[in-house]
């Protein structure tokens, strides 16, 4: 599948390696369009900076966790992600009139599917994290430890508990967490 990787994959690699030279190039080349879209639609440069940063961090996470491979130019993919994120934000907080809604949609078939994948990844991350935050403090504390320290034996030793007890408790907390996720309306739409 190597032949399908777009040369703009270098921007994904730059995110993975925190390569400030290429990241600066990314900002110089691709952020102008995003900034002018957001500024035109009730935003300002600072909000545009936040949106750009949030989108890049999501791309970074997806690339690192799921091995995202860019099969379309970065420009369209990135712009569409930023644009949709901003539209979601303003629709959430106000009923502001939005302009340029249909811009560029027709030429983005390749990018569209990548955008959808990234948005799905972001929604999934958000759902997992928000349900995790809603768990009891005891569960959160135990899970936090098991996430940082790979071996449950080590967690048990630190918490001065038996291994079997820690494993049982972890599975109970994880069970609760998966049920909370499954019961959330967002989960059904993520499954499809």
């Amino acid at each position, binding site marked *: 599948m190597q032949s399908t990787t777009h040369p703009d994959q270098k921007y994904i690699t730059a995110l993975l390696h925190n390569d400030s030279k290429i990241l600066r190039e990314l900002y110089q080349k691709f952020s102008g369009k995003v900034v002018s879209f957001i500024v035109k639609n009730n935003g300002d440069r600072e909000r545009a*900076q936040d949106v*750009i940063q949030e989108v890049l961090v999501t791309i*970074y996470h997806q690339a690192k966790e799921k091995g995202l491979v860019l099969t379309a130019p970065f420009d369209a993919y990135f712009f569409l992600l930023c644009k949709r994120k901003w539209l979601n934000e303003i629709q959430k907080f106000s009923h502001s009139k939005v302009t340029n809604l249909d811009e560029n949609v027709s030429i983005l078939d390749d990018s569209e599917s990548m955008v959808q994948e990234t948005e799905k990844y972001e929604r999934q991350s958000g759902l997992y994290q928000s349900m995790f935050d809603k768990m009891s403090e005891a569960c959160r504390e135990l899970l936090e430890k098991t996430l940082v320290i790979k071996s449950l034996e080590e967690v048990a030793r630190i918490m001065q508990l038996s291994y079997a007890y820690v494993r049982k408790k*972890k599975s109970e907390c994880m*069970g609760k967490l*998966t049920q909370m996720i499954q019961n959330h309306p967002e989960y059904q739409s993520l499954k499809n």
Partner: protein
Amino acid sequence: MLTDETYEIFERYLHGELSESEQSYLDQKIVDDPEWAEAFSLYQSVDQHLRFHKQNQEQTEQLKQSLRQIGNETLLEKTNKPIVIQFFNRNKVWLVAASILLLVGLFLFKDGQPMYVDFAQHNTMELTVRGANVTMEIEAQKLFNQGKYQQAESLLKKWLENQPENTEVKLYYGITLLENNHLIEAQKIFKELRTNDLFKNTAQWYLALTALKAKDYKTCETELKQIDSNAPESSKARKLLRKL
């Protein structure tokens, strides 16, 4: 029907602890029972995802800092460009030339001296907060870690007022002051922290950064030289010293 025992089987599977017969039982259940199949897949996905995010937290913060810095430089900072255009419109060629020279000079100066932003990489704030009413503390850490220092400042100040002996909170409050250009107050905090053996070198590093931000390169150098050679801060201190 999924029970606590079901999830314990999933957990033991993740650790490779199932016996052969238990493994066959799990394999069969996943084929026969869609509820099991879905829960098993989700259990693994959640475990992997949370683990990834937790273990990747520090790198994510570093990336966010780089992006914040690049974003500030490319999207927010004012340039001298409009002045050049204005002069150009008036057709005063010598002024254009002078502006260009000035710009070149500024860039040379920028390259000649180390910049604060190149060295201002802060650790993630991960203090344990306990008790029922810790919303403010959690919010303060979140804002700090997102680089929203303006908003974090007042919350950290309040937190420090509640716990004046908490040196870690004091350090992060100092960093926030430094980021928000309250250099004198920041310097005061770091000087107080310097008297604490555990924070001595960190505080010393931040005193150097405060001087760097104030473009007081001589003080910066003096502060850097006081960092112990075996301290974790010593390698970046040497790097900065070389550029001064």
